[in-house]
C-alpha cells in the first residue's frame, strides 16, 4: 500500500471516529428506545422478547452485530441494529450489562 493511500486511510479513520464521537447519545438514552418492546431497563416478564437486562457486553454486541450482518435471523431487529454504530452498540451493551 502506498504511503499516500495509507495516510488518507488514516485521515478517514480519524474523521470517522470524530464524526461518531461528535454527537453520540448516551447508552441510557439508546437503551430507552429498546424499552418500548424489551421492557423498562430491559427487564421483562414475558417470553416473546429477549430481556436485555444483565446480558453480558459480549453477548449483546455479538447479537447486534449478527442482526446487522443478517447472520442472525430476525423480524425487524436487523433494521433497528443497522441504525446504530459499533461505538453506540458498545455503549448500550455496557448499560444493559450493568442493570441490576
Amino acid at each position, binding site marked *: 500500500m502506498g504511503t499516500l493511500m495509507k495516510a488518507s486511510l488514516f485521515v478517514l479513520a480519524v474523521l470517522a471516529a470524530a464524526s461518531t464521537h461528535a*454527537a*453520540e*447519545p*448516551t447508552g*441510557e*438514552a*439508546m437503551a*430507552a*428506545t429498546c*424499552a*418500548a*418492546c*424489551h*421492557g*423498562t431497563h430491559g427487564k*421483562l416478564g*414475558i417470553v*416473546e*422478547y429477549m430481556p436485555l437486562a444483565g446480558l453480558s457486553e459480549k453477548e449483546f454486541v455479538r447479537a447486534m452485530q449478527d442482526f446487522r450482518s443478517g447472520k442472525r*435471523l430476525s*423480524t*425487524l431487529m*436487523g*433494521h*433497528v441494529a*443497522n*441504525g*446504530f454504530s459499533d461505538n453506540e452498540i458498545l455503549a448500550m451493551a455496557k448499560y444493559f450489562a450493568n442493570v441490576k
Partner: protein
Amino acid sequence: MLNRRDFLKAGAGLALAAALPARAANKSAHVVVIGGGVGGATAAKYLKLYDPELRVTVIEVNRSYIRPYGSSEVLTGHASIDELVVSYDALKSKYGVEFVFDTVVGFDPAKKQVRTAGRQSIAYDKLVVSPGISLQYQAIPGYSAAVAEVRVPSGWIPGTQTALLTKQLRAMRPGGSFVIVAPPNPYRCPPGPYERAALVTEWMRRHNPTGKVLILDPKDSFVTDATMQLGWHRLYGYNIPDSYLSDMPAGVKNSGKPSPIEWVRAMDGGATEKIDARTLTVMTKQGAVKADVLNIIPPMKAGKLAFDMGLTDASGWCPVDHRSFESSVHPEVFVIGDASIADAMPKSGFSANNQAKVTARAIVDQLAGRVPGEPVWSNTCYALAGSDYGLFVADVFRLKDGKIARVPGERYLPIDAAPAKIRLAAAYQQAWLKTFTEDCFA
C-alpha cells in the same frame, strides 16, 4: 367552551393564594403533565425514574386509559373493549406520580400555572403537554361528530364509536360492503386503516363470506405498502395494482376474479368529496359508492387543548425544538406525541413513548443545570394482514440540522420473507401490545 383568549385569561385571573407554589426554596421542582395517554404516562414514569426527587403531577380527564393501539381487534372480537382499559395505579403506587382527574380550562404561561374545571390552580416549573389528536369530522361535508356517534363511526379513538362499529359489522347484510374512508397524511397510526381493512376481511370470510371491504383513499400509497398488499393477495385474493406488481416476488399474479378487499387510490378516484350519512353514500371523484357499513377515519389535527393553549401553528400541529420537544411558542412547555411536529417520525404510540423519554431526560437535565445530551428515537410498528400474518415498519431517528431524520436503510418486512418470519411478526405484534403498555404505564 372558552375561546382561546378566554382560555388564556382563565389562566391569568388566578387567586395567588390558591396557586400551589411551584418551587419553594430547597424543594424539588414540580413537573406537570397534561394528558395521560401514551406520551403523558411515559413522560411521568420516566421523569420519576430519572429523578425520583421530582414532583410529577398528571392532569387527565379520565380515570383510566383506553389504548387505541390494537383497538381494531375489538371489531373482530379478538379483543374486548375491556381488555383495552389500562389503569393508572402502577404510576401512582410504584413511581409516586400524582394524578389530578380534571380538565384544564386555563393556562398562564407568564405565571407558569394551569387551571382546571374543578377550580384548582396548579403551578409548574416545567409543563409537558401530550394532548393527542382531534378528529376533524367537519372537514368532510355531510360528516360530523354527532353523525359519528350514531350512524358513521370513525372508531379511531376507542370508545362508544368502536362499540357501534362492531355492532354494525355484525348486523351487516350478507354480501354487504364495509367501506373504510382512509385519512390524508399526517394522521395517527399510519398502517392502522389498512390493518383494520385486513382484519375485517378476515372476519367476513368466516361470518359473511360474500361481504366486501372497500378502502377509499385520498392518498396513492401508505405505510407498509407492498408488504401489506402482498398479505391481502395471499390471504384474500386481493388484486394488486399494476404499478405494485413489479415489487412483488416472482410468481405473484392477479387472478382477475373479484376480491373481497379492494383499495381505491387517489389516482383511481378514491378521494372522498362528501358523504350522505342517511343513505351511507360516499361521493368520490369516481362517482357514488354505497356502503352497508361506513367507517370514516377523518383528517386529524393536534388535540383541542393544544389549540386552546396556543401551542399550534397554521398547520394545526405543534412546532417544537427537536432536541427536547420544548414548544417553539411557549418556553418551559414541552409538547410530545401525535400533536407535535416531529418531521420524519410517524404519529404512533411508539413515537410518543420515545419522545416522552427524550423529553423527560431533557427536563431533568435542564432542572439540574446540565445541557441535554444527543437525542435518539426509534419507531417500530408491527401490523397484521391477518391474525397469523404479521408485517412491520422499523426506523431509528436522529437529529440532523435541527430536524428529525430517519436513518436511511430498509424499514419493511422483506417482500420475499419466509412464512416463519411472517408468523413470528404476528406473534410479536400480540406480545408488543403487552410489553409496550407495561413500559408506558407500569
